[in-house]
């Protein structure tokens, strides 16, 4: 009995000693103290060392794009490191090409902050903010597309270009225990600085879109981050062609509202592709622009109208109709939003119609 007791006491004492040693080791070897992050040689932030660069920047309201939440599996969170950052890790190499490696581009989620570090990021990332917002309106546009309007609470002011997108954070719910963020184009006018609308199509098995379509309610408070993206209207007097279907209408709606508000006199045509009549939405709204804008034509085209659709409009493949609306190919800009395949196919057709490649702009879904 005494022997058993003695053994127990010995084990407890050894465990205590080991625990104390671990605590001391962590304090002395893992405590990196305060570290300075210098961004673009102008902004400096002081952080506690030990965490990763992506998180440290986000905590200081500098948001680097990431599709995987910092888990090192998307390769989006690239920054150029000017000084510090430690050696390139094997976990980063698969996401970097030779030129990037030579240029010291790194994945910010993989850089552990152990010392001062100096980085370069695109200037537009400074405009990205995290917003707390309230859902004030949910509209069912079609059986699988909703328009959701958010009133910004903190901060309550946003600046963005028509064509950009936001990351919406869906909270944990039902089967999905952790929050996820997904990107959706802004569909409202940039001049409205305290509310934004997103158009969201339900994705089968989608975590965020299932929450939007089945759980989200007016009055809910959510987080939004943005604005992101380089799809925007070029400030010229060139004619404009828009091509987008489904939820790709979102950035185009924002662009048209902007152009309308600014009384643009440019010649514009929007080709909206859908399968059947039930996939059409905001048709009357687009037709209103035909009255308010000096030279705008809305062209919905159904690829497979059903018999009972009673559709007398255009049918088939969008590119076959473009030439009928072209005035001066050399002075035409095209704005496309959709899948990479659709964009590549349409771009080829537009180039064949002599629209300059450098005047074709797109927002690709993938």
């Amino acid at each position, binding site marked *: 009995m005494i022997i058993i007791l003695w053994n127990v006491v010995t084990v407890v004492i050894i465990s205590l000693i080991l625990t104390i040693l671990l605590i001391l080791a962590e304090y002395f070897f893992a405590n990196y103290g305060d570290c300075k992050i210098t961004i673009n040689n102008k902004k400096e932030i002081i952080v506690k060392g030990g965490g990763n660069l992506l998180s440290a920047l986000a905590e200081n309201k500098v948001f680097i794009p990431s599709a995987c939440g910092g888990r090192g599996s998307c390769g989006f969170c690239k920054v150029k490191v000017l000084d510090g950052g430690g050696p390139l890790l094997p976990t980063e190499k698969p996401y970097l090409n030779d030129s990037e490696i030579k240029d010291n581009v790194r994945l910010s989620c993989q850089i552990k902050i152990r010392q001062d570090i100096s980085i370069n990021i695109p200037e537009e990332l400074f405009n990205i903010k995290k917003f707390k917002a309230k859902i004030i309106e949910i509209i069912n546009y079609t059986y699988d597309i909703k328009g959701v309007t958010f009133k910004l609470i903190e901060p309550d002011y946003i600046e963005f270009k028509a064509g950009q997108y936001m990351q919406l954070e869906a909270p944990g719910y*039902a*089967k999905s225990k952790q929050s996820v963020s997904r990107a959706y184009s802004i569909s409202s006018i940039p001049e409205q600085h305290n509310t934004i609308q997103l158009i969201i199509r339900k994705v089968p098995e989608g975590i965020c879109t299932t929450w939007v379509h089945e759980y989200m309610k007016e009055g809910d408070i959510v987080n939004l981050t943005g604005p992101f993206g380089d799809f925007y209207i070029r400030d010229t007097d060139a004619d404009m062609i828009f091509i987008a*279907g489904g939820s790709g209408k979102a950035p185009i709606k924002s662009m048209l509202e902007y152009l309308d508000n600014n009384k643009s006199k440019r010649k514009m045509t929007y080709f909206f592709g859908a399968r059947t009549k039930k996939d059409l939405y905001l048709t009357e709204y687009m037709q209103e622009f035909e009255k308010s804008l000096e030279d705008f034509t809305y062209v919905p085209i159904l690829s497979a109208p059903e018999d009972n659709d009673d559709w007398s409009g255009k049918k088939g493949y969008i590119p076959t109709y473009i030439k009928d609306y072209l005035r001066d190919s050399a002075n035409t800009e095209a704005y496309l939003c959709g*899948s990479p395949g659709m964009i590549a196919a349409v771009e080829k057709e537009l180039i064949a119609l002599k629209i300059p490649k450098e005047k074709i702009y797109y927002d690709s879904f*993938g």
Partner: protein
Amino acid sequence: MKLDPFEQKIIDKMQPGVLSLSGFLGKDNRHLHEIIEDDFNKLKSLNKTQEDIADRLSFFTDKSKDMIEDYIIIDDKYQVFQEVYRGLVLCPFNHKGTFKKAIIKLINIEKNIEIQWTPLNIHMIKEHCFFEGKGSHYRFEPEIIINAIF
């Protein structure tokens, strides 16, 4: 069967709500190794490889990607429609890179068989012989897929 930490990470990523709403294992009680091995043996008995299937699915995926809200008929026999959504999908097996968020639906008009898959499915079939667990949203039995696409 005890899992090593790497395998456990994969299983964790396959759970509902992590990378997709319902996850990748469905209602399957088998171990991940068993799911893969059973499907591998099934393919062997049907004289097909995972590469055969993945390459054929890739063929249909590639043929349908240029369409704008429309299906394409291939070889007068296959009606294929590809729906693409904004965003990217990650592989639960921790492979690098991302996969297009798309759903490809195929109808074999002659045999009246309909199946669907995602670009991630093609990758998981080719690299891991993983068709997802039974009861999972995008699982089709290998024999049904083979019957539909060949």
